């Protein structure tokens, strides 16, 4: 149905120096659910609004289905958007809200009613069609906003943090329903969130933005297993990856006086780089409490039932540094215990420039 392409697209808000979105290149496949994720102010909403036609594209272009839509107004792009606050028309009933776009397209009344009823059935809203939005719960409003989008059968769905006004439990439930609905309808979707868990669980691919610059776009698994740079490594994953500026231990990068095990290819790639400026990362599940390795003292044990996260204070480069280790209940530790941390899994090494050193 629809492919979307950002081509060197930039947005510079009037009166600002730095672009809010900086030369974005992104190809989104037909039927794909692409998630834009990044910290607050990273330009996610701006990128989405550029695609919607709500924000001027200052440089570059945006394409939908091989048609350059850069200069087209929103109504000519055949897109539907779900806003964070839902933006339901307060004076119209749920049914009128959902049918509003069809009415603008002069779709005959009977067909309109049919399509609204169909969408209402999918979203379980049939009994609320005559209500005003203010008489609905937050979750119902969210569904109406979704309904308004799917009634149109647009080329592309755009969603800007559509779940962030729901409570935690409903958010998790709605997130799966939404992913399922998107898969069933097969409509290309761009989904903005600042929540990396949401991004990882929903996205076919995830695009990570920081300061308006695209850091990496990949499948969630790849993003997690092979972050392209330090920023992505620190941003994706919860609890976050242990990420340190390395120190030189006998010509190898190390943490707290212990050299990390790197293979020859990585070692070769690091040749000529100052090891103090190289970074090393390791996820909590790739560390174990053992008999050899980095020495430290347990400060906190976060018990989650199936697993626990042990926070260990070590001395790294002359400073007290926290390392998080996942423990599956194999060892019993408590605050104050002296432990040793061993490597047990992949390591991530980033060169002086912050980019991943590929082995």
């Amino acid at each position, binding site marked *: 149905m629809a492919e979307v392409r950002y081509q060197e697209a930039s947005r510079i808000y009037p009166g600002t120096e730095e672009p809010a979105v900086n030369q974005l290149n992104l190809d989104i496949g037909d039927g794909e659910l692409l998630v834009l994720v990044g910290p607050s102010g990273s330009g996610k909403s701006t990128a989405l609004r550029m695609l919607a036609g709500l924000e001027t594209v200052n440089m570059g272009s945006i394409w939908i289905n091989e048609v350059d839509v850069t200069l087209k107004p929103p109504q000519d792009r055949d897109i539907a*958007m779900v806003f964070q*606050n839902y*933006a339901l028309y*307060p004076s119209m009933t749920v049914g009128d809200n959902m049918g*509003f*776009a069809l009415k603008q397209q002069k779709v005959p009344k009977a067909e309109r009613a049919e399509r609204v009823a169909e969408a209402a059935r999918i979203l379980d809203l049939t009994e609320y069609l005559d209500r005003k939005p203010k008489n609905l719960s937050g979750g119902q409003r969210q569904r109406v906003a979704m309904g308004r989008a799917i009634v149109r059968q647009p080329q592309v769905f755009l969603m800007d943090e559509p779940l962030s006004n729901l409570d935690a439990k409903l958010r998790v439930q709605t997130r799966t329903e939404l992913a399922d609905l998107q898969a069933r309808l097969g409509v290309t979707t761009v989904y903005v969130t600042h929540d990396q868990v949401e991004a990882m669980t929903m996205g076919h691919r995830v695009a990570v933005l920081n300061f308006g610059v695209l850091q990496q776009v990949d499948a969630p698994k790849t993003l997690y297993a092979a972050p392209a740079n330090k920023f992505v490594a620190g941003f994706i994953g919860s609890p976050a990856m242990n990420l340190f500026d390395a120190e030189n231990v006998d010509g190898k990068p190390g943490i707290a006086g212990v050299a990390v095990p790197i293979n020859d290819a990585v070692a070769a790639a690091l040749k000529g780089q100052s090891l103090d400026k190289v970074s090393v990362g390791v996820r909590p599940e790739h560390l174990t409490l053992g008999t050899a390795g980095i020495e430290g003292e347990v400060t906190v044990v976060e018990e989650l039932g199936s697993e626990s996260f042990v926070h260990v204070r070590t001395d790294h480069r002359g400073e007290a540094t926290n390392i998080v280790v996942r423990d599956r209940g194999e060892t019993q530790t408590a605050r104050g215990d002296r432990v040793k941390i061993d490597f047990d899994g992949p390591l991530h090494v980033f060169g002086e420039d912050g980019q991943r050193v590929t082995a």
Partner: protein
Amino acid sequence: MAIFTRAPKAEPILGQNRAVAMVLGVLTWIIGLLFFFPLFWLVVNGFKEESVASSSPTLNFDPTLDRFSEVTEDSGGLLSFTEAFGNSFWIVLISTVLVMVLAIPAAYALAIRPMRKWRDILFFFISTKFLPIVGIIMPIWIIARDLDLLGTRTVLVVLYTAMNLPLAVWMLRSFFAEVPKELIEASQIDGCSLLGQIRQVILPIVAPGVAATALLCVIFAWNEFFFAIQLNPTGASTIPVWVNSQQKFQGQFLAGLSAASVLATLPVVLAGWVAQKRMIRGLAMGAIK
């Protein structure tokens, strides 16, 4: 059970002192009566005979409706009540409609698609109200004369439109600015035309504000006297001019003038009373939620 728990007593203003509260209450009544009294006396006088109204003030009299029928009688050639009422009605109606038709797009532009220096533009609008009208009446009079508009309803329609427009733009802009930006964006994405957007999305939300604005325009136009007496003192003039004409050069006229004043005040008081709720809601713009 919760039903039986009493609501906590409201704390009297200015601490717990009941005496203070009572003094304040009495003071409020005195001030209220002080404000209300002239109006009250006006109404009372309207029901008196001329001789009673002109002699020492009294509440002991036989009320009569004669003054009301006298002043509304057709006075032959002069501006009659019915004519003045008709003139006022049409002038107020047309000028208010014109004001709204012009002010709504202006307010939309200023609130929702602000151009550069929109604050200066807004200030320019309101600054036209700073001029003392008496200082500019002469050029207006000359222009009206040269356009052959003296003594017409048209000149008052034009002037009242101009007079109320800045206020209406100013008020409507602040109401429009309260409409969530996402609603407008959603309507754009839904394929709404500009007019459709104003009519179907914005106006239903700001309706109380629009009503309040229109009501103020109606009241101001209804009450306007200076332009009317300067540019149109004759048969095509309005209610305030008619009231003024009830002053006689000889004989007693206090009761008649009072009756006329009551008649002139009535529509505005009624409109204000009927619209009170909406108006306050509109002015406070609690309507947007």
